[in-house]
Structures are given as structure tokens and as C-alpha cells.
């Protein structure tokens, strides 16, 4: 009776899911140095776990000073967008096995925003652009006594852009935004699109005028970096393109 149990234990040990992955993390701590440096961490981890789990492991077991944002850990709050292996992703939605753990996995803060510490950036410019497009329902006249009804087709029109979680993965992957932080950035345009094409909203014209600005949609070069980066699968470039089309067709 003892043998099968032993066999099983041995087999399990041989087929242990754990691997040793190297995480190369871009560290910056203004209280120690004015320079950012790469630091390697070796982590024993199941490759079916996520990058966020590895970061937790590092923070909880190896180096408690590692700083990063996360809240929900399930791809909903949008706080842990980071540049993993050179691509913007959510750490909580990236499985280690999908990004080749044989080589060191690089993790750094998203680009184009001020790095405050390690992987934490100052999101204020990003949210300022978001505020600038008036991301709220604007209506005129008396408030209806019941909810504002909308047909499924009207809702379908802007369904894609309602999925945004404001993680900044798109805006911080945009080369125009890197060069000139004055550009509204894809995320702000996505959230403007969500209201411009909402049949209940009445300030579409105003928002279009805001995006017609020098730093508005016309700066977009159709690089598609934003569509690639979006963890929610929003067709960001398409949304920007639809805003451009709306601007042109309202004139002619």
C-alpha cells in the first residue's frame, strides 16, 4: 500500500509546476538615487500564475520596498498597467507562461508619465485629459421622471468604448503622447466617444469641438499602439477614427 503513495509523491515532484523565472524590474527610488536601475529577482513560481502574483511574491518574500499599484487583481480597476517585456499590459491579466519565462521578464513603469517610485507613475496628466473631454452625461430640459430609455441598437453604437477601465495602457503606449503630453491621448478620446455617440447625450457637438483642437484627434497617426495595448480589447484606433469621421461629416 505504501508504494503507490510514494510513487505518486515522486511523480508529483518530478512534474512540479514550479519554475524559476527571472524578473528584471526597473527600480527607481528618489530617496536613494536619482537614477533608475534594473534589478533582477529570481522567483519560484507556477507559470500558470500571473505577473502580479510574481510581483506580490517579490514584495512579500524578497524585497518589501518594491512599489506598484494594484487593487482588484482581476482586470477591473485598471491600476496595474505596466510595461512587461516592452509591451503595456495589466500585470493581473498577464500569465507568466504567455511571455516566455525562459528569458528574463522585464517589468517597468508605463512611459510618458512621471515615475514617482518603481512602477508607480503620476497619473494626473492622464486624468486631466480625461476631465477635459467632459466624461459625464449632459442633457437639457426637464429631467424625466423615469429612467432615460434607449434602444438596444442605440446602446450598441458605443458599446465598445463603455468597457474602458482608465488604465492608461493605451495613452502611455502612444508615441505622440510620449513626445507631447499636451495630446489628449487615446483614453480621453475613447471616453469622449462613449458620450458623443450616446443617443441620450446632448453635448456631443461640444465634445467634438474640444477634440477638433490642435491637440485633439488630428494628432493621431494611426499607429495602432493603443489598440494593441488595450487590455479590454477596445478597438481604440477605430474609435478615434469614428470621431474624426464625425468631425468631417458634420462640416460637409
Amino acid at each position, binding site marked *: 500500500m505504501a508504494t503507490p503513495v510514494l510513487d505518486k509523491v515522486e511523480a508529483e515532484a518530478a512534474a512540479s509546476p514550479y519554475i524559476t523565472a527571472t524578473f528584471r524590474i526597473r527600480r527607481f527610488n528618489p530617496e536613494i538615487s536619482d537614477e533608475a536601475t534594473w534589478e533582477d529577482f529570481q522567483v519560484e513560481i507556477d507559470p500558470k500564475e500571473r505577473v502580479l502574483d510574481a510581483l506580490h511574491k517579490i514584495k512579500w518574500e524578497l524585497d518589501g520596498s518594491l512599489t506598484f499599484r494594484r487593487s482588484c487583481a482581476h482586470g477591473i480597476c485598471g491600476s496595474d498597467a505596466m510595461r512587461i517585456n516592452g509591451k503595456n499590459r495589466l500585470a493581473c491579466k498577464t500569465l507568466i507562461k504567455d511571455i516566455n519565462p525562459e528569458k528574463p521578464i522585464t517589468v517597468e513603469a508605463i512611459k510618458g508619465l512621471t515615475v514617482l517610485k518603481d512602477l508607480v507613475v503620476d497619473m494626473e496628466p492622464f486624468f486631466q485629459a480625461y476631465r477635459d473631454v467632459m466624461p459625464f452625461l449632459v442633457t437639457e430640459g426637464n429631467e424625466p421622471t423615469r429612467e432615460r430609455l434607449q434602444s438596444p441598437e442605440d446602446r450598441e453604437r458605443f458599446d465598445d468604448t463603455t468597457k474602458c477601465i482608465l488604465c492608461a495602457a493605451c495613452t502611455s503606449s502612444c508615441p505622440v503622447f510620449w513626445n507631447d503630453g499636451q495630446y489628449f491621448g487615446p483614453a480621453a478620446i475613447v471616453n469622449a466617444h462613449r458620450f458623443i455617440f450616446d443617443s441620450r447625450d446632448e453635448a456631443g457637438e461640444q465634445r467634438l469641438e474640444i477634440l477638433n*483642437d490642435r491637440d485633439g484627434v488630428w494628432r493621431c497617426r494611426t499607429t495602432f499602439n493603443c489598440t494593441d495595448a488595450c487590455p479590454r480589447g477596445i478597438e481604440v484606433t477605430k474609435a478615434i477614427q469614428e470621431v474624426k469621421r464625425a468631425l468631417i461629416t458634420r462640416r460637409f
Partner: protein
Amino acid sequence: MSADTTAATTDDVTLYDVDNPAPVIEPPRQRTKKTPRAPHKKGSNFEMYGWLFMRLSGIVLVVLVLGHLLIQLVLDGGVSKIGFAFVAGRWASPFWQAWDLIMLWLAMLHGGNGLRTIINDYAERDNTRFWLKMLLYTATAFTVLLGTLVIFTFDPNIR
């Protein structure tokens, strides 16, 4: 030796501390509440027309430029046939005059507008941006006007 290194690292560490943190590196031209927004006249559609112009002139230029290159470099003996006589012969016809004129204007404005957007993107200081653009506008205007003048006043009998 080892004492030296320790001293050096200690120096490094004391340079910045909790009360005296290192300056963070801000990306150029951040958007904050306080940053002055680029002046934008309400209802001005300049950027939109610029964008449209780039798409439309691009389509026309594909035909014009490829046709131009084909005639000049490939057909009929290639580049070696080009000379004063060849140009004079072509510009005798209003069709080729118009072709070259349109190509000149579209190509210069297309390229000029492209460079303008590049300068807007990459020049960090307002002053640099302004002077680079002035240089660009002058060069564009000069080339366009000179080219136009030559096309219209071309004299095949010049000695």
C-alpha cells in the same frame, strides 16, 4: 581600496534621503490643470483641413510622382535622355506644365505640413518650435514660388 569604495557609496547614499529626495524626471509638456492650453480659436478647422489635405493630396501625389519618375527615369532611354531640350519639349505642352505645377504645389505643401506636425511633436521649447516653423515656411514658400515662376516664364530660346 575597500575603504575607499565604502566611502564613495556612503557619499552616494547621503546625496538623497527621505527629506531630500532626488528630482523626478517629468516628461516634456505635461498636461496639468495649470498648463496653458495651446491657443485654439473656437470653430477653427485648420487642423481638420490639414489632415484632410494630407489624405487627398497623398492620393493624387501617388499618381503624379510615380508617373513623373516613370517618364523621367524609365521610359525612352531613362535618365540619360534628360537635358535642356527634353525639358523644353515637355514644357511646350500645357498638359505637362500643369502636371509639374500641380505636383510642385502638392508635394511642397504635403511635405511642409508633414514637417510642421513633426516639429510640433518633437520641438520641446516654444521658441525652438516657432523658429523651426518659420524656417520651414520660408523654405516652402521660396521653393514653391521659384518653381512656379520658372514653369510660367520658361523660355526655350534662352541663350
